[in-house]
């Protein structure tokens, strides 16, 4: 059923190496360039967590979860509420991840599974959009539409290396986002449950035959994706440029979509690489190309996605599928 395109396999890795070299050379020559690259990587880390959450669900159920961003925002509000009740930041962080996991699990069970039974891609996509409206609406109903102030766990410390200032905020965001993705990768790679989940995603019927409860694995996938999305939401809210409000993740979701699509939709590694690249690209474009103001970041990400899709429809790291008709 699936097959790799034999031609020009080396182009993607070679291109990536070229981009890395370019970024390093630029960073060595200009302090501004280095700073913009690092804060772009921090944004990219946030997009990466959300993009991997999207890929996780796409691989399990072939659905793009349009509600992923809204669920992440909801989780962030839960964390905010817990902190209002007196929990410390990291205690609230841990509780939120657990709540998000249970929430994602429940959402799949209640909202997606009954729809999925009926089949087509269109119905499930529309149901996911219904979920987006529902979740964002609930946030507004419970917590109101005004902007909340989210405390940041990272002291405003700045490290200076060779004339280049790195904020601790950015470095911590990169570290935590990537850590979350790596933990998840380890879970899928090295645990029996992770193996069962991969089996359920790739060959549901065969997995069922060897005793994997496929439907539970799918719910579990949604739970994990929601927890990963919560990490993205919390990191986004910790950043000074993002305000905690019901539509907080709308824009970030688009960047995560772009990353997931550019990475090939089925490849978590591809999504991470693409997310980091998009984060850096957007930052560099807004600081060096003057007619692109912050308002045009979204269209730029969109154009990148469109170009990659038109040139290489399966994304940079996706498999080219041969469809049987």
């Amino acid at each position, binding site marked *: 059923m699936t097959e790799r395109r034999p031609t020009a396999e080396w182009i993607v890795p070679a291109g990536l190496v070229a981009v890395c070299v370019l970024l390093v050379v630029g960073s060595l020559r200009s302090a501004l360039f280095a700073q913009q690259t690092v804060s772009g990587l921090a944004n990219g880390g946030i997009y990466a967590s959300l993009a991997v959450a999207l890929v996780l669900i*796409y691989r399990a159920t*072939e*659905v*793009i979860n*349009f509600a992923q961003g809204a669920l992440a925002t909801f989780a962030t509000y839960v964390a905010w509420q817990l902190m209002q009740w007196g929990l410390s930041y990291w205690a609230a962080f841990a509780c939120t991840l657990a709540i998000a996991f249970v929430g994602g699990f429940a959402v799949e069970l209640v*909202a997606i599974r*009954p*729809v999925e039974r*009926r*089949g*087509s*891609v*269109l*119905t*499930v*996509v*529309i*149901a996911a*959009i*219904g*979920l*987006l*409206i*529902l*979740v*964002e*609406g*609930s946030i*507004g*109903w419970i917590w109101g*539409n005004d902007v909340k102030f989210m405390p940041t766990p990272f002291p405003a410390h700045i490290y200076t290396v060779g004339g280049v200032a790195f904020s601790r905020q950015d470095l911590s965001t990169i570290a935590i986002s990537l850590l979350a993705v790596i933990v998840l990768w380890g879970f899928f790679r090295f645990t029996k449950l992770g193996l069962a989940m991969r089996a359920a995603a790739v060959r549901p019927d065969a997995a069922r035959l060897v005793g994997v409860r496929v439907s539970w694995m799918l719910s579990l996938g949604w739970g994990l994706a929601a927890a990963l999305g919560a990490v993205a939401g919390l990191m986004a809210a910790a950043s000074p440029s993002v305000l905690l409000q019901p539509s907080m993740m*709308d*824009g970030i979701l*688009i960047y995560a*979509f*772009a990353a997931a*699509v550019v990475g090939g*939709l089925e490849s978590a590694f591809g999504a991470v690489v693409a997310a980091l690249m998009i984060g850096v690209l957007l930052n560099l474009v807004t600081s060096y190309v003057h007619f692109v*103001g912050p*308002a*045009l970041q*979204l*269209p730029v*990400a*969109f154009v990148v*996605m*469109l170009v990659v*899709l*038109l040139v290489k*429809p399966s994304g940079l790291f996706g498999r080219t599928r041969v*469809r049987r*008709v």
Partner: protein
Amino acid sequence: MRLRRPTAVGAAATLCAAIVVALLPFALSNYHRTTGATVAVYFIAILALDIVTGYTGQISIGHGAFMAIGGYTTAILTHDHGWNDLATLPAAAAAGFAAGVVVGLPALRFRGVYLALTTFAVALAVPQIAKNYSRFTGGTEGLPLPAHSGLWLYEVGWAIAGAMFVAAWLLLRGRTGRAFRAIRDSEVAAASSGVTLAVYKTVAFGISAAMAGVAGSLFVLVNSFVNPDVFGLQLSLYVLIGAVVGGLGSLRGVLVGAAFVELLPIGLTSGSLAPSQAVPVIFGAVVVAVMALLPLGAADLLRTVLQSRADRGQHPDTPLGTEAK
């Protein structure tokens, strides 16, 4: 053909609905006539979405963007160039058509979730572009337009809606409509029966976007004001909700969908049945429930009733994408 009896019932129902709509303004206050005109706007937009998503199976979450293009065409032509506002409607349709063809071109290569993502990104990007080029669009402050009486808006709105409905019906019942449905049900089968996919998909997008452009233009006239927030993501989602509730792939439910989207929030809040914050929650829940229980919406309900009357076992066709996963 086979459906003679239900068609007769449908024609009678359509006639009744048309008479009610025509007589209604005489029983309404000026304010409620404006509300009625907004229902007409949603009617046209939902009709437009139904052509491309319900009939041709090409999902669009971005119809608010086409409405924005039509709306801004009208606003800029009347505000800066002194056009009569009704004279701008053909221009809005032309601008919408052009935009639809441009968005439809990638649709030739994308299917399913990719198309959903692309149109979603368009819906988010267009208001940002309007914000950025404030020289033409007035930026966030927007542009004012001449105000009209509620009766004028109602009559113009519904006259155009009626004409659009007849045009859509004529388009969909013939050769073109058959080609659209063939594409929805199986692209391969359609292509091998001599339907040129590229032409028909682009045409579907173009016509649909032209109608959405007219809807946007009327929307601007009804509000007598335009700014980017008028055409935010919410509008795109509301049009989709209306189409889903009314029933994708059927013209019968369009009025139901339009009334649902515009009147439910007003009914709930003015009857103080629920706070206004609850509206999106209810909308979202309804969309998920419709997708789970009755994927063809109100039209399906109607069809089931008609069919049991006509003692017919089998659905005439299977709307909503049997598109392969």
